[in-house]
């Protein structure tokens, strides 16, 4: 397994695309927190402070797309043939990708967290607000955000392996987040809608710090996301093992 993990890491480290993509996560955090403060968010309100840190979970949009590239990107460039020639045991390839992409997803989440803390601190001192959020609460929000970044990277690997067409996989994932989940949520009712992936990620990343929304509790959201990651990973394994590579 170690040679395959090393190979997957080298694939990532020898091209620029994935890193440009992942850099968009912290940029989104900066823009999001700045927007929150500039649009009148009260810097004296601890809920607003928690909401600022919750942007880390939103940055997971980019680890999701990053994950989709793992397998679908290989089909896009035709490198998947060489990958499976090196390792005819395709399950091991998918496992190595899951490990590497989850680890990089975690790193991306940690960078976004550090940026979120720095930008929040900067705005709060600029606006003269006092930092009222308890340390435990801050860490819970950031920890949830990092977990969402990891889960979305793994889910992305699964989506890319299932769909294989890079453009369709990315379009489908973005459409789900922007549109389809909302409609599906209305169809199944709010009780079940809380368990849908994006809602679960909102809960895990505590995007509803005010507590007034209909999201799951944080642990419930994290559990649901972990479940989705496992389901997609298993589906990725099963389909990847069987399909012809033509």
């Amino acid at each position: 397994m170690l040679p395959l993990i090393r190979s997957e890491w080298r694939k990532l480290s020898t091209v620029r695309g994935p890193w440009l993509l992942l850099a968009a996560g912290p940029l989104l955090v900066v823009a999001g927190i700045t927007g929150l403060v500039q649009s009148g968010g009260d810097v004296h309100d601890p809920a607003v402070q928690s909401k600022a840190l919750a942007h880390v979970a939103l940055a997971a949009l980019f680890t999701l797309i990053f994950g989709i590239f793992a397998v679908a990107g290989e089909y896009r460039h035709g490198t998947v043939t060489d990958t499976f020639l090196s390792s005819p045991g395709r399950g091991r390839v998918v496992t190595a990708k899951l490990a590497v992409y989850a680890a990089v997803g975690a790193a991306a989440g940690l960078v976004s967290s550090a940026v979120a803390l720095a930008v929040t601190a900067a705005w709060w001192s600029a606006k003269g607000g006092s930092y009222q959020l308890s340390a435990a609460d801050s860490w819970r929000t950031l920890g949830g955000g990092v977990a969402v970044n990891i889960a979305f990277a793994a889910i992305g690997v699964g989506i890319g392996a299932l769909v294989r067409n890079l453009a369709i996989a990315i379009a489908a994932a973005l459409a789900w987040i922007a549109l389809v989940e909302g409609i599906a949520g209305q169809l199944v009712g709010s009780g079940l809608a809380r368990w849908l992936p994006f809602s679960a990620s909102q809960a895990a990343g505590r995007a509803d710090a005010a507590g007034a929304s209909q999201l799951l509790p944080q642990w419930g959201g994290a559990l649901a996301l972990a479940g989705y990651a496992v389901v997609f990973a298993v589906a990725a394994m099963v389909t990847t093992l069987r399909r012809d590579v033509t």
Partner: protein
Amino acid sequence: MSEVKVHDLTKTFGRVTAVRAMTFTAQAGKVTGFLGPNGSGKTTTLRIVLGLVRPDAGTALIGGVPYDRLAAPRRSVGAVLEANGFHPGRRARDHLRVLADAAGIPRIRVDEVLGQVGLAGAADRRVRGFSLGMRQRLGLAAALLGDPQVLLLDEPANGLDPAGIAWLRGLLRVLADEGRTVIVASHVLSEVAQTADHAVIVSAGQVRFAGPLSEIGAAGNALESAFLKLTAPAG
């Protein structure tokens, strides 16, 4: 031994039968030309041999073992399947390192094969800027990386200039003379006629001829006329 044995192979894609009860053996120490018109099942057969496509029936063995049971596939078999299996933003040397990492092949081999295919000077360039001929050479370098006993090459001369084709011919000869099994799939007859010892001629997924090239005749266009006769559509 490292002969490639294809037995009674059949593969259907939807309603199209790409390969139909195909049987042939490619021997070690020989260059086997795998000839047939476009769409005659050559590439599908090679992909089945390499474990990329699952046959509906039949077996494909390398030294008596299916590809996915080989202990060290890249050290046993090298393949060039398409001239475009590269990430355009990756440098040639890094492309080979990715493969060397996965197969546990020492890094020194990367520079050796780059030199062997004449790409030492382009090792640090991104593949995006490579000509088709250079991509073909890089694919060949990947195939040679594990110093394998079996080489499967699909249209390897595609995109090579005349000097490149002459170089490839010499390389294949040397590799076969070292005792390796070399299979070259092509529809360019003149290229194979000068290199191959054996020929397997296929049409519509079926073997029409398998045997020494000398059986077809030594005359300049003997291979071409035999090929056209063997692969002509029935009726």
